[in-house]
Protein backbone atom coordinates (compact mmCIF):
# COMPACT_ATOMS: atom_id res chain seq x y z
CA UNK A 1 0.00 0.00 0.00
CA UNK A 2 0.97 3.66 -0.06
CA UNK A 3 3.31 4.82 2.69
CA UNK A 4 4.03 8.28 4.10
CA UNK A 5 6.60 9.17 1.42
CA UNK A 6 4.14 8.22 -1.32
CA UNK A 7 1.45 10.42 0.21
CA UNK A 8 3.91 13.32 0.56
CA UNK A 9 4.79 12.92 -3.13
CA UNK A 10 1.12 12.93 -4.10
CA UNK A 11 0.48 16.11 -2.07
CA UNK A 12 3.50 17.86 -3.58
CA UNK A 13 2.44 16.86 -7.10
CA UNK A 14 -1.07 18.26 -6.61
CA UNK A 15 0.34 21.53 -5.20
CA UNK A 16 2.73 21.85 -8.10
CA UNK A 17 0.02 21.16 -10.67
CA UNK A 18 -2.45 23.59 -9.06
CA UNK A 19 0.03 26.46 -8.79
CA UNK A 20 1.44 25.92 -12.29
CA UNK A 21 -2.06 25.81 -13.77
CA UNK A 22 -3.07 29.06 -12.04
CA UNK A 23 0.06 30.83 -13.32
CA UNK A 24 -0.45 29.40 -16.81
CA UNK A 25 -4.06 30.64 -17.03
CA UNK A 26 -2.94 34.18 -16.17
CA UNK A 27 0.02 34.09 -18.58
CA UNK A 28 -1.72 32.34 -21.45
CA UNK A 29 -4.91 34.39 -21.63
CA UNK A 30 -3.26 37.48 -23.22
CA UNK A 31 -0.89 35.27 -25.23
CA UNK A 32 -3.73 33.14 -26.63
CA UNK A 33 -5.83 36.23 -27.37
CA UNK A 34 -2.93 37.80 -29.26
CA UNK A 35 -2.31 34.58 -31.22
CA UNK A 36 -6.00 34.26 -32.06
CA UNK A 37 -6.43 37.82 -33.30
CA UNK A 38 -3.11 39.20 -34.55
CA UNK A 39 -2.21 39.65 -38.20
CA UNK A 40 1.43 40.17 -37.15
CA UNK A 41 4.21 38.37 -39.01
CA UNK A 42 5.63 37.43 -35.61
CA UNK A 43 2.71 35.05 -35.16
CA UNK A 44 4.34 32.03 -36.82
CA UNK A 45 7.65 32.20 -34.90
CA UNK A 46 5.83 32.74 -31.57
CA UNK A 47 3.51 29.85 -32.44
CA UNK A 48 6.52 27.65 -33.05
CA UNK A 49 8.14 28.62 -29.73
CA UNK A 50 4.89 27.96 -27.84
CA UNK A 51 4.62 24.50 -29.43
CA UNK A 52 8.27 23.54 -28.75
CA UNK A 53 7.55 21.80 -25.40
CA UNK A 54 5.20 19.48 -27.30
CA UNK A 55 7.97 18.05 -29.44
CA UNK A 56 11.15 18.39 -27.36
CA UNK A 57 12.06 15.45 -25.13
CA UNK A 58 11.34 16.66 -21.57
CA UNK A 59 14.84 15.63 -20.52
CA UNK A 60 16.25 18.05 -23.11
CA UNK A 61 14.04 20.81 -21.73
CA UNK A 62 15.14 19.85 -18.21
CA UNK A 63 18.82 19.81 -19.08
CA UNK A 64 18.71 23.26 -20.68
CA UNK A 65 16.79 24.55 -17.66
CA UNK A 66 19.39 23.03 -15.31
CA UNK A 67 22.16 24.84 -17.15
CA UNK A 68 20.22 28.10 -17.68
CA UNK A 69 19.08 28.27 -14.05
CA UNK A 70 22.50 27.31 -12.70
CA UNK A 71 24.96 29.84 -11.26
CA UNK A 72 26.61 30.35 -14.68
CA UNK A 73 23.37 30.47 -16.68
CA UNK A 74 21.41 33.61 -17.67
CA UNK A 75 18.37 32.79 -15.51
CA UNK A 76 20.63 31.79 -12.63
CA UNK A 77 22.58 35.06 -12.76
CA UNK A 78 19.32 37.00 -12.81
CA UNK A 79 17.77 35.17 -9.83
CA UNK A 80 21.04 35.44 -7.88
CA UNK A 81 21.15 39.21 -8.54
CA UNK A 82 17.60 39.44 -7.19
CA UNK A 83 18.81 37.70 -4.03
CA UNK A 84 16.75 34.55 -4.71
CA UNK A 85 19.70 32.19 -5.17
CA UNK A 86 19.44 29.59 -7.93
CA UNK A 87 16.23 27.74 -8.80
CA UNK A 88 17.21 24.09 -9.33
CA UNK A 89 16.39 21.81 -6.36
CA UNK A 90 13.59 24.17 -5.22
CA UNK A 91 9.81 24.04 -5.54
CA UNK A 92 9.93 27.40 -7.34
CA UNK A 93 12.26 25.85 -9.90
CA UNK A 94 9.77 23.05 -10.53
CA UNK A 95 7.00 25.62 -11.03
CA UNK A 96 9.10 27.43 -13.66
CA UNK A 97 9.82 24.13 -15.37
CA UNK A 98 6.17 23.02 -15.27
CA UNK A 99 4.92 26.32 -16.68
CA UNK A 100 7.18 25.91 -19.70
CA UNK A 101 6.43 22.20 -20.02
CA UNK A 102 2.62 22.58 -19.95
CA UNK A 103 2.41 25.90 -21.84
CA UNK A 104 1.06 24.51 -25.16
CA UNK A 105 -1.63 22.52 -23.34
CA UNK A 106 -3.10 25.72 -21.91
CA UNK A 107 -2.49 28.10 -24.85
CA UNK A 108 -4.10 25.91 -27.52
CA UNK A 109 -7.59 25.39 -26.01
CA UNK A 110 -7.78 29.10 -25.06
CA UNK A 111 -6.79 30.11 -28.52
CA UNK A 112 -9.40 27.82 -30.08
CA UNK A 113 -12.04 29.28 -27.76
CA UNK A 114 -11.11 32.88 -28.60
CA UNK A 115 -11.10 32.09 -32.32
CA UNK A 116 -14.54 30.46 -31.97
CA UNK A 117 -15.95 33.55 -30.26
CA UNK A 118 -14.87 35.56 -33.30
CA UNK A 119 -15.05 39.32 -33.91
CA UNK A 120 -18.81 39.72 -34.17
CA UNK A 121 -19.71 39.82 -30.44
CA UNK A 122 -16.95 42.40 -29.94
CA UNK A 123 -18.29 44.58 -32.74
CA UNK A 124 -21.77 44.38 -31.26
CA UNK A 125 -20.39 45.29 -27.84
CA UNK A 126 -18.51 48.24 -29.37
CA UNK A 127 -21.71 49.61 -30.91
CA UNK A 128 -23.17 49.53 -27.40
CA UNK A 129 -20.26 51.72 -26.29
CA UNK A 130 -18.35 49.04 -24.39
CA UNK A 131 -14.62 49.76 -24.17
CA UNK A 132 -12.16 47.06 -25.28
CA UNK A 133 -11.38 45.92 -21.70
CA UNK A 134 -15.03 45.91 -20.74
CA UNK A 135 -16.08 43.92 -23.76
CA UNK A 136 -13.22 41.43 -23.28
CA UNK A 137 -14.16 40.75 -19.67
CA UNK A 138 -17.95 40.84 -19.98
CA UNK A 139 -18.38 39.37 -23.47
CA UNK A 140 -15.38 37.30 -24.59
CA UNK A 141 -14.47 35.62 -21.30
CA UNK A 142 -17.95 34.23 -20.54
CA UNK A 143 -18.27 32.97 -24.13
CA UNK A 144 -14.83 31.34 -23.94
CA UNK A 145 -15.48 29.64 -20.60
CA UNK A 146 -15.44 26.04 -21.89
CA UNK A 147 -11.99 26.76 -23.37
CA UNK A 148 -10.76 27.89 -19.94
CA UNK A 149 -12.03 24.74 -18.25
CA UNK A 150 -10.40 22.55 -20.92
CA UNK A 151 -7.13 24.50 -20.65
CA UNK A 152 -7.09 24.23 -16.86
CA UNK A 153 -7.84 20.49 -16.85
CA UNK A 154 -5.28 19.68 -19.54
CA UNK A 155 -2.60 21.89 -17.96
CA UNK A 156 -3.21 20.33 -14.55
CA UNK A 157 -3.23 16.73 -15.79
CA UNK A 158 -0.17 17.24 -17.96
CA UNK A 159 1.79 18.70 -15.04
CA UNK A 160 0.77 15.79 -12.81
CA UNK A 161 2.36 13.45 -15.36
CA UNK A 162 5.56 15.47 -15.69
CA UNK A 163 8.74 13.44 -15.26
CA UNK A 164 11.76 14.30 -17.35
CA UNK A 165 11.93 17.98 -16.46
CA UNK A 166 11.59 17.30 -12.72
CA UNK A 167 14.16 14.54 -12.92
CA UNK A 168 16.69 16.97 -14.37
CA UNK A 169 16.14 19.99 -12.11
CA UNK A 170 14.52 18.54 -8.98
CA UNK A 171 17.20 16.65 -7.08
CA UNK A 172 14.61 14.29 -5.56
CA UNK A 173 14.20 16.16 -2.25
CA UNK A 174 11.33 14.80 -0.11
CA UNK A 175 8.45 17.29 0.30
CA UNK A 176 10.21 19.83 -1.91
CA UNK A 177 10.86 18.28 -5.31
CA UNK A 178 9.98 14.57 -5.10
CA UNK A 179 6.83 14.24 -7.20
CA UNK A 180 4.80 11.11 -7.90
CA UNK A 181 6.42 10.26 -11.24
CA UNK A 182 9.91 10.37 -9.71
CA UNK A 183 8.70 8.32 -6.73
CA UNK A 184 7.37 5.65 -9.14
CA UNK A 185 10.69 5.63 -10.98
CA UNK A 186 12.55 5.14 -7.68
CA UNK A 187 10.29 2.26 -6.68
CA UNK A 188 10.91 0.55 -10.01
CA UNK A 189 14.68 1.08 -9.81
CA UNK A 190 14.72 -0.27 -6.27
CA UNK A 191 12.71 -3.29 -7.47
CA UNK A 192 9.80 -2.32 -5.18
CA UNK A 193 7.32 -3.32 -7.85
CA UNK A 194 4.28 -3.59 -5.56
CA UNK A 195 4.54 0.04 -4.42
CA UNK A 196 5.30 1.14 -7.97
CA UNK A 197 2.09 -0.59 -9.11
CA UNK A 198 -0.05 1.17 -6.49
CA UNK A 199 1.20 4.60 -7.46
CA UNK A 200 1.31 3.97 -11.19
CA UNK A 201 -2.16 2.40 -11.16
CA UNK A 202 -3.44 5.45 -9.31
CA UNK A 203 -1.90 7.71 -11.93
CA UNK A 204 -3.52 5.76 -14.76
CA UNK A 205 -6.91 5.85 -13.04
CA UNK A 206 -6.61 9.58 -12.31
CA UNK A 207 -5.61 10.45 -15.87
CA UNK A 208 -8.31 8.28 -17.37
CA UNK A 209 -11.05 9.80 -15.20
CA UNK A 210 -9.90 13.35 -15.97
CA UNK A 211 -9.88 12.71 -19.71
CA UNK A 212 -13.15 10.80 -19.58
CA UNK A 213 -14.86 13.75 -17.87
CA UNK A 214 -13.33 16.08 -20.42
CA UNK A 215 -14.44 14.09 -23.45
CA UNK A 216 -17.86 13.11 -22.15
CA UNK A 217 -18.87 16.67 -21.35
CA UNK A 218 -20.43 17.84 -24.59
CA UNK A 219 -19.49 21.47 -24.16
CA UNK A 220 -15.83 20.80 -23.44
CA UNK A 221 -13.88 19.41 -26.30
CA UNK A 222 -10.09 19.71 -26.11
CA UNK A 223 -9.42 22.07 -28.97
CA UNK A 224 -6.36 21.48 -31.15
CA UNK A 225 -5.62 23.28 -34.33
Amino acid at each position, binding site marked *: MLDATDLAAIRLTLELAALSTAILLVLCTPLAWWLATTPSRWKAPIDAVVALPLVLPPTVLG*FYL*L*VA*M*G*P*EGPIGRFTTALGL*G*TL*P*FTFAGLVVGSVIYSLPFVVQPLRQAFAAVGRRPLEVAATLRAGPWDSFFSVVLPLARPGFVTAAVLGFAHTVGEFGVV*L*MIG*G*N*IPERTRVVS*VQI*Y*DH*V*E*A*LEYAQAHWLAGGMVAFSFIVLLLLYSSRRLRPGWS
Partner: protein
Amino acid sequence: MLLRLLAAVLAAICLPLSVPVHAAEVQVAVASNFLAPMQRIAAAFERDTGHRARLASGATGKFYAQIRNGAPFEVLLAADETTPARLEAEGRAVAGTRFTYAIGRLVLWSPRAEYVDAEGAILRRGGFAHLAVANPRTAPYGAAAAQVLAALGLGDALAARLVTGENIGQTYQFVASGNAELGFVALSQVMADGKLAGGSAWPVPDELYLPIRQDAVLLERGADNPAAAALLDYLRGDAARALIGGYGYRF
Protein backbone atom coordinates in the same frame (compact mmCIF):
# COMPACT_ATOMS: atom_id res chain seq x y z
CA MET B 1 40.61 -18.25 -69.93
CA LEU B 2 37.01 -18.79 -68.98
CA LEU B 3 38.07 -21.08 -66.15
CA ARG B 4 40.53 -18.52 -64.91
CA LEU B 5 37.85 -15.81 -64.96
CA LEU B 6 35.50 -18.13 -63.10
CA ALA B 7 38.18 -18.81 -60.52
CA ALA B 8 38.80 -15.07 -60.10
CA VAL B 9 35.09 -14.40 -59.65
CA LEU B 10 34.79 -17.24 -57.15
CA ALA B 11 37.82 -15.96 -55.25
CA ALA B 12 36.38 -12.44 -55.18
CA ILE B 13 33.12 -13.77 -53.76
CA CYS B 14 34.74 -16.05 -51.20
CA LEU B 15 37.52 -13.72 -50.02
CA PRO B 16 35.39 -11.30 -47.98
CA LEU B 17 33.60 -14.27 -46.43
CA SER B 18 36.78 -16.03 -45.44
CA VAL B 19 38.31 -13.25 -43.30
CA PRO B 20 35.68 -12.52 -40.63
CA VAL B 21 34.05 -15.92 -40.85
CA HIS B 22 33.77 -16.05 -37.06
CA ALA B 23 33.06 -12.32 -36.50
CA ALA B 24 29.84 -11.72 -34.64
CA GLU B 25 27.96 -9.02 -32.79
CA VAL B 26 27.23 -8.91 -29.09
CA GLN B 27 24.59 -6.77 -27.39
CA VAL B 28 25.96 -5.34 -24.14
CA ALA B 29 24.10 -3.61 -21.32
CA VAL B 30 26.61 -1.45 -19.46
CA ALA B 31 26.17 0.51 -16.22
CA SER B 32 26.30 4.29 -16.75
CA ASN B 33 29.49 4.76 -14.72
CA PHE B 34 31.41 2.33 -16.96
CA LEU B 35 30.26 3.63 -20.35
CA ALA B 36 33.31 5.81 -21.11
CA PRO B 37 35.92 3.08 -20.49
CA MET B 38 33.69 0.50 -22.19
CA GLN B 39 33.49 2.54 -25.39
CA ARG B 40 37.28 2.46 -25.63
CA ILE B 41 37.40 -1.23 -24.71
CA ALA B 42 34.78 -2.01 -27.38
CA ALA B 43 36.89 -0.25 -30.02
CA ALA B 44 40.00 -2.19 -28.99
CA PHE B 45 37.97 -5.43 -28.81
CA GLU B 46 36.76 -4.96 -32.37
CA ARG B 47 40.27 -4.18 -33.58
CA ASP B 48 41.78 -7.23 -31.86
CA THR B 49 39.09 -9.87 -32.44
CA GLY B 50 36.91 -8.66 -35.34
CA HIS B 51 33.81 -9.01 -33.12
CA ARG B 52 31.56 -6.03 -32.59
CA ALA B 53 30.16 -4.96 -29.22
CA ARG B 54 27.00 -2.88 -29.34
CA LEU B 55 26.60 -0.89 -26.11
CA ALA B 56 23.50 0.32 -24.31
CA SER B 57 24.11 2.27 -21.12
CA GLY B 58 21.76 2.85 -18.23
CA ALA B 59 20.91 2.08 -14.62
CA THR B 60 21.52 -1.47 -13.44
CA GLY B 61 18.08 -1.72 -11.82
CA LYS B 62 16.41 -0.76 -15.08
CA PHE B 63 18.43 -3.32 -17.01
CA TYR B 64 17.35 -5.96 -14.51
CA ALA B 65 13.69 -5.18 -15.15
CA GLN B 66 14.26 -5.15 -18.92
CA ILE B 67 16.21 -8.42 -18.95
CA ARG B 68 13.48 -10.10 -16.89
CA ASN B 69 11.05 -8.95 -19.55
CA GLY B 70 12.99 -10.31 -22.48
CA ALA B 71 15.38 -7.50 -23.45
CA PRO B 72 17.82 -8.75 -26.11
CA PHE B 73 21.02 -8.23 -24.07
CA GLU B 74 23.67 -10.93 -24.13
CA VAL B 75 26.15 -9.52 -21.62
CA LEU B 76 25.50 -7.36 -18.55
CA LEU B 77 28.19 -5.14 -17.03
CA ALA B 78 26.46 -4.15 -13.81
CA ALA B 79 27.28 -1.40 -11.31
CA ASP B 80 26.87 -3.86 -8.44
CA GLU B 81 27.32 -7.54 -7.61
CA THR B 82 23.78 -8.33 -6.50
CA THR B 83 22.03 -7.87 -9.85
CA PRO B 84 24.14 -10.40 -11.82
CA ALA B 85 23.83 -12.85 -8.89
CA ARG B 86 20.05 -12.41 -8.86
CA LEU B 87 19.82 -12.96 -12.62
CA GLU B 88 21.87 -16.12 -12.27
CA ALA B 89 19.67 -17.41 -9.44
CA GLU B 90 16.61 -16.77 -11.59
CA GLY B 91 18.10 -18.70 -14.49
CA ARG B 92 18.43 -15.68 -16.77
CA ALA B 93 22.23 -15.72 -16.73
CA VAL B 94 24.63 -18.58 -17.42
CA ALA B 95 25.81 -20.15 -14.16
CA GLY B 96 29.51 -19.78 -13.41
CA THR B 97 30.13 -16.83 -15.74
CA ARG B 98 30.04 -14.06 -13.12
CA PHE B 99 33.23 -12.19 -12.26
CA THR B 100 34.26 -8.78 -10.92
CA TYR B 101 35.47 -6.75 -13.88
CA ALA B 102 36.18 -3.58 -11.85
CA ILE B 103 35.96 -2.19 -8.33
CA GLY B 104 34.51 1.29 -8.40
CA ARG B 105 35.89 4.12 -6.30
CA LEU B 106 34.11 7.09 -4.85
CA VAL B 107 35.40 10.65 -4.99
CA LEU B 108 34.19 13.95 -3.53
CA TRP B 109 34.52 16.34 -6.44
CA SER B 110 33.98 19.96 -7.44
CA PRO B 111 34.63 21.52 -10.86
CA ARG B 112 36.25 24.46 -9.00
CA ALA B 113 40.02 24.22 -8.47
CA GLU B 114 41.18 24.09 -4.83
CA TYR B 115 37.61 23.93 -3.54
CA VAL B 116 37.68 20.36 -2.22
CA ASP B 117 40.74 19.75 -0.01
CA ALA B 118 42.73 16.51 -0.05
CA GLU B 119 41.29 15.37 3.32
CA GLY B 120 37.62 16.12 2.61
CA ALA B 121 37.56 18.54 5.56
CA ILE B 122 35.17 20.78 3.61
CA LEU B 123 32.35 18.41 4.58
CA ARG B 124 32.80 19.42 8.24
CA ARG B 125 33.58 23.05 7.48
CA GLY B 126 30.43 23.54 5.41
CA GLY B 127 29.93 26.76 3.46
CA PHE B 128 28.04 25.04 0.64
CA ALA B 129 24.30 24.94 -0.08
CA HIS B 130 24.07 21.62 -1.91
CA LEU B 131 25.95 18.33 -1.76
CA ALA B 132 25.02 16.00 -4.63
CA VAL B 133 24.82 12.24 -4.13
CA ALA B 134 23.31 9.44 -6.18
CA ASN B 135 20.14 7.84 -4.84
CA PRO B 136 21.34 5.44 -2.09
CA ARG B 137 18.34 3.16 -2.65
CA THR B 138 18.96 2.61 -6.33
CA ALA B 139 22.59 3.46 -7.13
CA PRO B 140 25.59 1.59 -5.68
CA TYR B 141 27.66 4.80 -5.64
CA GLY B 142 24.84 6.49 -3.74
CA ALA B 143 24.82 3.73 -1.13
CA ALA B 144 28.60 4.15 -0.78
CA ALA B 145 28.22 7.93 -0.33
CA ALA B 146 25.65 7.34 2.42
CA GLN B 147 28.10 4.98 4.16
CA VAL B 148 30.83 7.62 4.00
CA LEU B 149 28.62 10.32 5.52
CA ALA B 150 27.55 7.89 8.26
CA ALA B 151 31.17 6.89 8.96
CA LEU B 152 32.13 10.56 9.28
CA GLY B 153 29.13 11.17 11.56
CA LEU B 154 27.75 13.79 9.16
CA GLY B 155 24.64 11.97 7.98
CA ASP B 156 22.17 14.05 9.99
CA ALA B 157 24.09 17.31 9.80
CA LEU B 158 24.14 17.31 5.99
CA ALA B 159 20.77 15.66 5.33
CA ALA B 160 19.08 18.98 4.55
CA ARG B 161 21.72 19.89 1.95
CA LEU B 162 21.63 16.65 -0.02
CA VAL B 163 20.35 16.68 -3.57
CA THR B 164 19.87 13.26 -5.09
CA GLY B 165 20.56 12.27 -8.68
CA GLU B 166 18.78 9.23 -10.06
CA ASN B 167 22.10 7.75 -11.08
CA ILE B 168 25.73 8.68 -10.96
CA GLY B 169 25.54 10.36 -14.38
CA GLN B 170 22.89 12.78 -13.22
CA THR B 171 24.74 13.41 -9.97
CA TYR B 172 27.78 14.44 -11.99
CA GLN B 173 25.55 16.82 -14.03
CA PHE B 174 24.33 18.55 -10.86
CA VAL B 175 27.93 19.28 -9.84
CA ALA B 176 29.38 20.00 -13.29
CA SER B 177 26.65 22.59 -13.99
CA GLY B 178 27.50 24.36 -10.71
CA ASN B 179 24.03 23.87 -9.23
CA ALA B 180 25.53 21.80 -6.44
CA GLU B 181 28.94 23.06 -5.25
CA LEU B 182 30.28 19.55 -4.74
CA GLY B 183 29.20 15.94 -4.86
CA PHE B 184 30.12 12.28 -4.47
CA VAL B 185 30.69 10.90 -7.97
CA ALA B 186 32.52 7.96 -9.48
CA LEU B 187 36.27 8.45 -9.77
CA SER B 188 35.95 7.18 -13.36
CA GLN B 189 33.86 10.24 -14.26
CA VAL B 190 36.51 12.79 -13.29
CA MET B 191 39.60 10.84 -14.22
CA ALA B 192 41.10 10.01 -17.57
CA ASP B 193 44.40 8.27 -18.30
CA GLY B 194 45.28 8.17 -14.62
CA LYS B 195 44.86 11.92 -13.93
CA LEU B 196 42.13 14.14 -12.53
CA ALA B 197 40.53 15.77 -15.59
CA GLY B 198 39.77 19.04 -13.80
CA GLY B 199 38.53 20.73 -10.62
CA SER B 200 39.45 19.50 -7.17
CA ALA B 201 38.78 16.18 -5.48
CA TRP B 202 39.09 14.04 -2.40
CA PRO B 203 39.40 10.36 -3.32
CA VAL B 204 37.50 8.77 -0.43
CA PRO B 205 39.62 6.28 1.59
CA ASP B 206 38.55 2.67 1.00
CA GLU B 207 37.86 1.97 4.68
CA LEU B 208 34.94 4.44 4.76
CA TYR B 209 32.70 2.39 2.47
CA LEU B 210 32.16 -1.18 1.29
CA PRO B 211 33.90 -1.89 -2.01
CA ILE B 212 31.71 -1.22 -5.05
CA ARG B 213 32.23 -4.53 -6.82
CA GLN B 214 31.00 -4.32 -10.38
CA ASP B 215 30.23 -7.75 -11.79
CA ALA B 216 29.83 -8.90 -15.36
CA VAL B 217 27.73 -11.89 -16.37
CA LEU B 218 26.87 -13.80 -19.54
CA LEU B 219 23.10 -13.69 -20.05
CA GLU B 220 21.05 -16.64 -21.35
CA ARG B 221 20.56 -14.94 -24.72
CA GLY B 222 24.31 -14.79 -25.28
CA ALA B 223 24.99 -18.37 -24.21
CA ASP B 224 25.74 -19.55 -27.76
CA ASN B 225 27.27 -16.35 -29.09
CA PRO B 226 31.06 -16.67 -29.46
CA ALA B 227 31.39 -12.87 -29.43
CA ALA B 228 29.80 -12.70 -25.98
CA ALA B 229 32.25 -15.19 -24.50
CA ALA B 230 35.13 -13.45 -26.28
CA LEU B 231 34.12 -10.08 -24.82
CA LEU B 232 34.04 -11.45 -21.26
CA ASP B 233 37.52 -12.96 -21.81
CA TYR B 234 38.75 -9.69 -23.26
CA LEU B 235 37.53 -7.76 -20.19
CA ARG B 236 39.85 -9.91 -18.03
CA GLY B 237 42.83 -9.35 -20.33
CA ASP B 238 45.76 -6.95 -19.93
CA ALA B 239 44.66 -4.51 -22.66
CA ALA B 240 41.26 -3.96 -21.06
CA ARG B 241 42.68 -3.84 -17.53
CA ALA B 242 45.16 -1.11 -18.48
CA LEU B 243 42.27 0.99 -19.84
CA ILE B 244 40.04 0.29 -16.85
CA GLY B 245 42.82 1.18 -14.39
CA GLY B 246 43.38 4.49 -16.17
CA TYR B 247 39.86 5.49 -15.13
CA GLY B 248 40.65 4.90 -11.47
CA TYR B 249 39.01 1.49 -11.04
CA ARG B 250 40.70 -1.28 -9.06
CA PHE B 251 40.52 -5.05 -9.50
